[in-house]
């Protein structure tokens, strides 16, 4: 509750929060099928219909309602983004904490493996994984999760190492506190702030990657809608039906903007205390 109030007191938090909230609503509606029209229904007589009061964002080559498909696509993208970031954050936190806490050999092994993953350009690694497992929603989730795991590992390991050297951890050792107590209470609890920020920014990146994969035809498969796919389909019709490109393009952009703004706001909100705590 206090967190929400802090977000809404921050200008970019307010805008970002509003955008993310709106998208969440659209995503839920899109997934539940509560769209203006059936997103898969082909209104053959109204093919490439320009936006008007019936078709708010026009129709595509098959006469499907763009607004409805957009909502469905947002739902699709959000599922991929949330699951992939959840997996990456979980795996990255466990690996990063393990590397920082056990140190030495563990740290070496974990970080070298992460170096290998980081040596691939992100989209290439995702492409490779999709090629192995075949395109589809779950593949996208796994691919994005694997690409983002090393980043979470780093985000956790660095602060965990500096927390480990803090006097309150020394104090805990003098009482003989158990490792699990120190790791959960003294390390993990203090990592909540940087993790929250990173999760928000990772969501923006996951939306971007999902759209990219779909754009290349390796993400969500037709006839299901996805923003990247819609954008890719619009390319040959750009001059006759620009709305096919404009709406999905802007929709992707604003969704990413929303998470970026929210992430920035969270960083600002957490920072003063983090600075005091980690200074």
């Amino acid at each position, binding site marked *: 509750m206090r967190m929400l109030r802090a977000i809404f007191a921050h200008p970019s938090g307010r805008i970002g929060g509003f955008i993310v909230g709106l998208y969440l609503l659209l995503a839920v509606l899109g997934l539940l099928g509560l769209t203006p029209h059936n997103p898969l229904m082909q209104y053959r007589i109204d093919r490439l219909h320009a936006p008007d009061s019936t078709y708010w964002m026009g129709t595509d080559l098959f006469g499907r309602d763009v607004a409805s498909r957009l909502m469905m696509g947002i739902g699709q993208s959000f599922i991929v983004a949330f699951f992939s970031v959840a997996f990456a954050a979980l795996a990255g936190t466990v690996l990063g904490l393990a590397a920082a806490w056990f140190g030495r050999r563990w740290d070496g092994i974990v970080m070298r493996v992460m170096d290998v993953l980081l040596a691939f350009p992100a989209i290439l690694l995702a492409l490779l994984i999709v090629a192995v497992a075949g395109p589809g929603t779950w593949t996208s989730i796994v691919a994005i999760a694997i690409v983002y795991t090393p980043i979470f590992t780093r985000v956790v390991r660095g602060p965990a190492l500096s927390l480990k050297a*803090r*006097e*309150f951890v*020394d*104090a*805990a*050792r*003098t*009482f*003989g*506190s*158990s490792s699990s*107590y120190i790791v959960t*209470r*003294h390390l993990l*609890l*203090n990592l*909540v702030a940087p993790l929250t920020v990173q999760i928000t920014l990772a969501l923006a990146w996951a939306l971007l990657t999902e759209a990219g994969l779909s754009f290349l035809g390796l993400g969500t498969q037709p006839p299901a809608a996805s923003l990247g796919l819609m954008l890719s389909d619009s390319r040959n019709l750009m001059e006759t039906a620009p709305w096919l490109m404009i709406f999905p393009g802007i929709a992707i952009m604003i969704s990413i903007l929303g998470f970026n703004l929210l992430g920035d706001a969270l960083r600002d909100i957490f920072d003063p*205390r983090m600075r*005091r*705590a980690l*200074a």
Partner: protein
Amino acid sequence: MIPLLSVSGLSVGFGRTPQANEVVRGVSFELADGETLAIVGESGSGKSVTALSINRLVDFGGGRITGGSIKLKRADGSVLDLTAASEPQLTKIRGAEIGMIFQEPMTSLNPVLTIGTQIEESFRLHRGLTGRQATAAAKEALDRVRIPDAARRLKYTPNQLSGGMLQRVMIATALACNPRLLIADEPTTALDVTVQAQIMALLAELKRETGMSMIFITHDIGLVAGIADKIMVMQGGVAVEQGELNQILDQPRHAYTRHLLQDVPHFASGRATRSDGRRDKALDTEPALKVNDLVVRFPVKSGFFGRATGAVHAVDGVDFDLMPGETLAIVGESGSGKSTTARAVLGLVRSTRGSFSASVRKATAGQSALPIQMVFQNPYASLNPRLTIESILAEPMIATGGRLGSAARAKMATLLKRVGLPENSLERYPHEFSGGQRQRLCIARALMLNPSVVVLDEAVSALDVSVQARVLELLVDLQREFGLAYLFISHDMAVVERIAHRIAVIYAGQIVEIGDARSVLSAPKHAYTKKLIAAVPAIDRRRERFELDTRQVPSLVRPLGFEPAPARWEQFGVDHRVRVEA
């Protein structure tokens, strides 16, 4: 005769509405040519803001001068009101007419530029010197602050020099263009006491040479006795008292000045040591802690494969014992091994060799599995900011297999009350407490397990002087009540004098002198102890001239397998031993 600087009714505020948020209110003073004014106050008193207002650096920190005037007599005799000066005017005055040095020499020099470049910059800006001329001038400036081998040092970057050397570089930079006013903002606070003495001596000497005026800002009223002509005492943004040095020190009129002079620990050469619990008879009881030949070495790795090529002898053959109810202070400068000793006793650092035994105290109920507990230096870092005070105090009990029951809660409540914290503290978080309160919390936490020995590692060093005094009082009371033995690690002789029964002086990882506090402080025998004590500022040592000494601390890095020769000791009196110097 127009004074060099005349400040009247100065008010400075911060934030969007500076008038409503003033941290300096109506400060007035005058400074004549060649005079030194000391501004004394604790943190938040507005002393630094006052100083930064004079060269208008306060503007860059978000401050705004909301009232009053600062009149500076310029080199040509004209008078300029600095509160109304334009930024281009000010850049001509800064460095040329007003120089400034700061508290943290380590961070006050640009890390990516050589010190030569940074000194030359002053000459370039104000004298128009370039190239070889500027370099020569910079070398001269370094010579002036007695930096040996100046020509070579010009090419160094700040990370290659020690704190004391860097502060000299800062002074050289600030004085490069012979400003007639030097503002020194706590210039020695971050330095060791012997280095502080060096810097003070240097400042006094340069002042004599150049006839400049100086504004010296400090929290330590004892320190100004040696250098100031006038003192201004500040509290809460207001100048509560100002006057001649002797007048302020001998006949303080304001209650706060009296408090600073009387209640705050000042070094008194052994006259203010504790009179209770001296070690004359009690030697037959078992010591609470006994340390034998403690050695801590860290391998020095070098080369591509990181092979150990030597070892840092951080602690080298330290032994002492500590009786119940007794305080042993370990004093030394940074890098002497005093903190490593403390951490080794607690097992936070693995000792290479040596043994220690701690006996569980028999007198009180509630025996502890862990007879030694510790209070750390930084009260902001030693409490987990995300846990409530209740969780923090409960941690030691949970760690030793206890449970958070009503007995534990009752104990927390008693201890909180005992260390002087409100009872509703339990649900609150550390950031809701001040530094002094946090240190009380740390003390309460350390007492949760009924220890017989408490290690206090610079436990009051981070606190303001008047808070320091109160925490020391609390520690003494607790010691009497619970019969605690304290191992008190500190660099601050004035604090040590108030709390120690015995003192061990540690230098380069070895104890060089140990014994009864009064005896060690009033009649030091080892050359290092003498030097250390001579460097401590004191109110009764007025206008004393410190001697310049550029000796460096010996390196602690030794080749692999090196063993120092066994120590030989000389006994003075009942309880005072000194290591025989090689």
